[in-house]
């Protein structure tokens, strides 16, 4: 229906963006507009559903349909949207509090059911909107207004959580990596089922630098490994390091390529392997590069389709009703 292909800016709304200047959310918004333009679907057929938090303001800044709901419940609202009209493209946006704390249950079930939603967790490891309390993804020792002596709780690793929930598409990206993030988002969109993407997002005001070098564009190559299906897992600014898979321990090990006896020992990324995905999910800084990209992608029946629902009407009418009565 479009004579002119839509451009990224066609996906922006007229609303004034209210995030703090320099917030990582801006970068994600920018990447998202690019992705939506690339996908090319009309904004009228796209819905963004969000919970509450800084991240959850996202729908207001796009020209698509949008629903800013209540804290933690966006995945459930989005499931309802899909039940009513499976033809819509539905994206769910929330923060680490939204997805992992108050809404953890809904995240679990949306993933487990494999509802065709693109779930984007903006992880800044802090409660931004409520002024900086520690969150379920904050590392132990996080000093915040509610943990002046440092937090003692073990944080949740969202990728591991998602895999544990039975998610069939799990990926990770970072706000500032503007060539990488759109690729991941497009893959998430292409997947039919629940696509879970953890986006490491910097909260400049309450948790600046929480992800260290990961989303520092110049240092990121050292701190992350970019996954590509079928490709060797190499990282480092000089592409001089690699991950090896130890079959005995079922764990990855990091090594300098120069020191390897055999280059074939470098692990090849297999995004269809759950065992490998679980091992990848365990890799954390500072001992390991953090895996970015599609960590796991497997085929599975999508929930709404499996239930047999399509369109908005099952041709249920007065005659059928009369037969029932």
């Amino acid at each position: 229906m479009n004579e002119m292909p839509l451009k990224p800016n066609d996906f922006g709304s007229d609303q004034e963006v209210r995030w703090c200047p320099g917030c990582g959310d801006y970068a994600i918004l920018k990447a998202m507009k690019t992705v939506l333009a690339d996908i090319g679907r009309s904004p009228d057929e796209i819905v963004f559903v969000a919970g509450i938090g800084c991240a959850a303001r996202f729908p207001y800044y796009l020209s698509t349909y949008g629903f800013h709901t209540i804290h933690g419940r966006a995945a459930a609202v989005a499931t309802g949207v899909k039940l009513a009209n499976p033809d819509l493209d539905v994206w769910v946006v929330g923060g680490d509090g939204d997805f992992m704390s108050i809404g953890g249950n809904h995240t679990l079930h949306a993933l487990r059911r494999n509802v065709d939603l693109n779930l984007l967790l903006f992880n800044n490891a802090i409660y931004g909107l409520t002024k900086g309390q520690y969150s379920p993804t904050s590392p132990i020792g996080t000093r915040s207004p509610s943990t002046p002596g440092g937090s003692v709780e073990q944080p949740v690793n969202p990728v591991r959580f998602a895999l544990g929930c039975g998610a069939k598409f799990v990926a990770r990206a970072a706000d500032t990596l503007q060539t990488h993030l759109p690729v991941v988002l497009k893959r998430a969109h292409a997947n039919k089922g629940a696509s879970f993407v953890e986006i490491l997002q910097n909260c400049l005001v309450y948790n600046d630098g929480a992800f260290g070098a990961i989303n520092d564009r110049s240092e990121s190559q050292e701190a992350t490994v970019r996954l590509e299906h079928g490709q060797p897992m190499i990282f480092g600014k000089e592409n001089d390091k690699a991950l090896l898979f130890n079959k005995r321990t079922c764990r990855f090990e990091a090594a300098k390529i120069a020191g390897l006896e055999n280059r074939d020992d470098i692990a090849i990324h297999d995004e269809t392997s759950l065992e490998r995905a679980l091992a990848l999910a365990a890799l954390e800084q500072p001992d390991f590069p953090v895996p970015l990209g599609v960590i796991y992608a497997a085929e599975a029946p999508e929930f709404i389709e499996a239930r047999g629902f399509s369109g908005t009407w099952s041709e249920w009418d007065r005659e059928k009703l009369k037969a029932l009565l």
Partner: protein
Amino acid sequence: MSETALAAERQGTDKAQPLVVRFAGDSGDGIQLAGYEFAKSTADARSDFMTFPDFPAEIRAPTGTLFGVSAFQIQFGADEVLTPGDRADVLVAFNPAALATNLQNLKPGGVLIVDETHFDARGLKKAKLDVNPLEDRTLDGYQVITVDVEKRTLEALKSLELGRKQAVRAKNFWVLGLVYWMFARPLGKTQDWLNVKFKKTPAVARANIMAMKAGHAYGETLEISAVPDLTAPRVAKHKGASRIISGARAMALGLAAVAALGRRDIVFCSYPITPASTLLHALARLEGGVRTFQAEDEIAAATAAIGASFAGSLGVTASSGPGLSLKTEALGLGVAVELPLIVIDVQRGGPSTGMPTKPEQSDLTMAIHGRHGEAPLPVLAPATPDDCFWIMIEAARIAIETMSPVIVLTDAYLANAASDWEIPDIDNVPDIDRPRVKPDGEGEFRPFARDPLTLARPWVAPGTPGHAHRIGGLEKAKGSGHISYDPANHAEMTRARAEKISRIADRLPAIEMEDGVQDGDILIIGWGSTHGSIAQAVKELNAEGARVSHVHLRHLWPLPRGLEALIRCFPRAVTAELNTGQLSSILRSEYLAPVTCISQVNGQPFYVSDLKAEITRRLETCVHE
């Protein structure tokens, strides 16, 4: 009972009077099944009737225990039957525990059929009975028929070579056979039903049928003077063959009707909870029109339903008290974003888990007022199982016309109670139309523009070209719907949301009394499932010469126009409620009128006799109590 009294009774019960029959036994005894079959045979016999299953929350409590007793009561008669009856004319007790807990539900002089099998030391102990009531004077004053049901069932099924345990399971049909004989009912339909129900296990069907026939044949052998004549047919002349329907089933059909009338699937989201689950089960079996979703909790159920409404379907969610509490925040969102939504609350005894299978009307205040912020929404309550069908259609119309969540309050009694049902003439029911988007003024679409009459905003679903917009729980600027923290705008929006709900009352039919005269001595104000008991009590009192009037509210919020004036016509206005006076306090605060309350909170529907006594007492008090 003396010989002469028995003989008098043998003349037969007064044919003009309705009869109440109650079955009571272990929850594993198949009491509900037997009761329901008896109700179906009552429908076939063309009597008017109403049933009430009264079961425990425990699924299979240890056999023989007091807390494991399940009961099923039915009242039927030639005249209009409005309630399942107070105390029973006939009680069938399957074990000592059933007798111990249900004897209080039998009228003095009533007929008691008892399975004597388990009245041994063990059975009596489980029922916490020190002495055997069959042997002391406990049952004096009743017409008692004791039968060794288990032994006779086993005997009847001897030829089938079933295990003892399996054979004994047919005892409910043995008893049903005997009861059918007492009421001169044919066995054929139940036999057919058993053959269908146990199509895959014909041996089970056969066992039950043989047991039923044996019970029936046993009746023939009874000393005729020992059995009261209950055979009068009690045909309701105004009726054709009718269908039996429970409130839950009627609600399910009502929602199926909403889908057909709206020509769009509705999305029903729920998390299992007694006694609301039956609705989910009934809808899940439908072949179209309703998309059911068993959510992970009630919060997800309510929010998914809101999501469905945002996407253009009508979202519906159902639960009971604890679940409604969980849905509260979502309801606030529904009010804020002004989307249609139906919320069904099948009330049960509270607080907390309370009495999950027992009715109470104690969520009224929560339904009307129980949300943070100013969050008014309409509240409706069906009065009868039949009304459960119509109230769904009405709730859908109000929700869509007003763009608001609507709460429908039913209860454990109404959901499970069944009566005969006149199949609705759906051709005469108008379509449920969506409000047209009225483009107001030039330029872009304004999602929070309002219809000048109803104050509803337009309902435009994603997928509609050229109308993409954003909504949310933050306060919205009037018209545009953009985020706004402007003080004057918030005041205006708050008042608009309230006014929108208030105006529903303008479109409701004028308030009508159920019974009585405008200058009566007392006005009884009821709502919801108590309709039958109140109507019957008022009818009987007026027949006895009293001047009692009855108004029954289907609309609890906004309150119907004219109610205040009506209340002021009477020297006494009294609500009758299964709570501690929630409607009466709302009426007092709304009208500054001295409305008092007849309150009952024992987890049971009102007895007509109790209501009559209480109304009579109120009539004797001076006006300014």
